[in-house]
């Protein structure tokens, strides 16, 4: 049982990483990117197909992350060009259409045959108190914590961070003030492209073996981001880890396992309604 809970930490860390990407995009571009994980799925399947051709794993990973990043930047540019003046609802609907487009392209490029992903990090690891911590647990957890700290410092302390937040809050005002909005947009989408792709590469061996399956990891990622209210990076980290451990625990009990999605729905709806309980009215404008 403890074993299952701890093994949930890998998934939890990746949920947290993806959740952090969602929060970073939301806080800097004002959009909830439903296509975040589809971008990562592109990278993961590129990697596995390249490795299949006999390419060394690390080269394949680098190329895969580059591919994911390019897709991410293209998506960001599309949103910047066409949707920078529209509200969050429309922007988010646009990412839903983008998700659908990526799913169609993914299906075309990679097909829907399940792949077997190699997991280069599970080979090493150590055993503590009878529980095995594999390489990917350590890497994912470490990456999630480091990223949280880095993002937190960047957004709150650096000039670029302040500028990014200004762009999210008032894109037009920021542009009129002469902020390089285009360059800032590219920075953000490159960043979430790299992190999102790497995260999916780490989680792919245990999570799912198809493009669609990987793309739908956006659900737990969103749940993690919601735990932090799309604002707090630390709470997003905690939310992702909690969610991973809870799913690890529930997968141990065969009876509850199939209801994981329902549990997630209940978890998210209750958090949301609690947070928004005072919001009797839409924004006053």
């Amino acid at each position, binding site marked *: 049982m403890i074993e299952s809970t701890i093994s949930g930490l890998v998934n939890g860390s990746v949920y947290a990483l993806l959740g952090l990407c969602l929060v970073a995009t939301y806080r800097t571009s004002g959009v909830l990117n439903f296509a975040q994980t589809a971008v990562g799925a592109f990278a993961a399947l590129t990697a596995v197909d390249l490795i299949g051709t006999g390419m060394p794993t690390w080269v394949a990973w680098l190329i895969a992350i580059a591919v994911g990043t390019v897709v991410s930047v293209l998506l960001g540019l599309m949103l910047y060009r066409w949707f920078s003046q529209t509200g969050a609802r429309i922007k*988010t609907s646009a990412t*839903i259409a983008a998700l*659908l487009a990526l799913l169609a*392209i993914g299906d075309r490029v990679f097909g829907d045959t399940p792949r077997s992903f190699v997991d280069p990090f599970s080979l090493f690891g150590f055993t503590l108190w009878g529980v095995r911590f594999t390489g990917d647990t350590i890497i994912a957890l470490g990456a999630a914590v480091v990223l949280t700290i880095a993002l937190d410092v960047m957004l709150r302390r650096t000039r670029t961070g302040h500028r990014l937040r200004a762009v999210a809050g008032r894109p037009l005002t920021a542009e009129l003030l002469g902020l390089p909005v285009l360059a800032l947009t590219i920075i953000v989408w490159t960043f979430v492209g790299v992190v999102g792709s790497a995260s999916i590469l780490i989680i792919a061996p245990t999570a799912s073996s198809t493009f669609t399956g990987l793309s*739908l990891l956006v659900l737990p990622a969103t749940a993690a981001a*919601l735990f932090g209210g799309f604002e707090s990076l630390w709470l997003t980290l905690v939310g992702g880890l909690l969610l991973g451990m809870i799913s690890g625990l529930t997968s141990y009990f065969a009876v509850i396992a199939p209801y994981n999605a329902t549990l997630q729905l209940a978890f998210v709806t209750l958090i949301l309604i609690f947070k928004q309980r005072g919001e009797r009215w839409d924004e006053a404008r």
Partner: protein
Amino acid sequence: MKRASLRNPVLLGLLALLIAGCIPLCVQGFPLYLATAAVIGVFPILSVGLITGRAGIITLCQLSFTGIGAWSVAALNAAGYSLPIGLLILLGGLAAVPFGLLLGLASLRLRGINMGIVTLMFAAAAAAYFQLYPLPGLSAGKVVDRGAPFESDSAFFWLSLTVLALVVGVVSLVSRSRTGTSWLVVRTSERGAASLGLPTAVAKLTVFMVGAAVSGVGGALLIAQTGVVSGDSFGILPSIVVFTLAILFGARFIEGAILGALASVVVPQLLLAAGIPNDIGTLIFAVTALPALRTGYGMAEALRARLARRSNNNPAPDGRRESKRSISRDRSRWRQGTEPVHTDDRVLPTAVEATPALSILDLSVQYGSVRALDGVTISVPSRSVVAIVGPNGAGKSTLVDAVAGFLPGYTGEVRLNGTNLDGWQAHRRAQAGLRRTFQQVRATADLTVQQYLQLAAGRRLDRDEVDAVLDFVQGPTARSLIANVDVGSRRLIEIGGGLVSEPAVLLLDEPAAGLPSSESELLGERISLMPSVFKCSVVVIEHDMTLVHSVCDEVTVLNFGRVIATGSPKHALSDPLVVSAFLGAE
């Protein structure tokens, strides 16, 4: 004549029905199967059109409702009940309603992206259930029995078409009702809806329930058509496809939903014939939906806008009034055309009207550590015009929000004709005769002026009443679409809406903001006539001191949330405290 008949939606619908009804006479076999699939495909797209298109709430789980409808019918069939097909379809629709209600309840507090997340997770949860509990009878190969006359494919096509026609009929009737119109208003602004006396909760719950039912009916038909359906058809992906189709084709309107369903059936077949894989079709839908999202115009909306522009070029002969009348003519009309105005009426209320129309007692509002209003007491006599003035940040708008019921957390008392309104929700206050307008105009762009006024009045208005009030406020013509009139005119329409509702008190929040001075002067005259013509009291929040001087019986001056002066305009505005508050002197 021909033009007129083409413009009548009922005739057009019947014509389309007649043409579609001929399909089984022309084709059989696979093409007929596809035609039936297209008819059934309309239901989920139409339901997205209602919830997202009309009420503006993102929903990514409409096929879960379809699945629930199909599942229920399959369960009844597997359990051995042989019910008539009509009843099965009805039950399929009803089975989805409780789930629609649940999501509707969530939408009372959740908006925008949050509803996107919750509905997507609902779709994921439902998909997991369909995996866990496949449709009953699926594994045993137990086919849903359509019953005697509908076993033939032609008969079933006609049945599906009839059900679609009935659903469309019901949906159009509901959409035209007060509740149905309130869906559009909620999309524009929930505050705007409540200020017209429309309960926003009812609007959201009903739109989700109707949408779920429409989807559920589609599910019942689907399983009756194919006999068995795999649970995969109701997964997350199909729901996203339906959402995208609804946006692309503008499923807010029925023809948009029909176009979307046709495309979802025809495009894959065309691609198949051309040897292009099917996922390219999905890609095309997704990519073409982006411009539709950007402009806010799906295909049906764009089509309607084009038709409307064309009809504007050759205006209908009946009464498009010239947009502005000469001021003097109107003035005389309103002086003579109504019951005589005794100026004394306003100054000396009769014994019966001794209770003030609106009394605000010791009202305070706290935002965190800021006291926005501090023990404000104002009494508005019956049939009077009272102004509330003050520098920026004095708490004027907070006062209107609190009195109108948009700030539930105030302390103190608000009484309307002696009735205590504390704890009443905003829409109930509006229904009770306490109406307000907004600084930022919230009149729903998708309605015509007449529709908006009727909604505001809460009753059927005849053409004369509509014209009379529009004449009074100098608004645009009754048939113009609010989307096509300028912001100043929209404000006049909102004021008109307040007046036709026969309010006890009308709160006007900066009615002259953005109006040129000539129009503001005219508006001032109108405001001073309102108590006698519409038998109401008016509270004006204003910056424009000329307006305040010319129209008000009494003025209350606010500064930093407190009343610093009250009395006749001449008296109150010359108070040294007031002068220094406005000029910022020490």
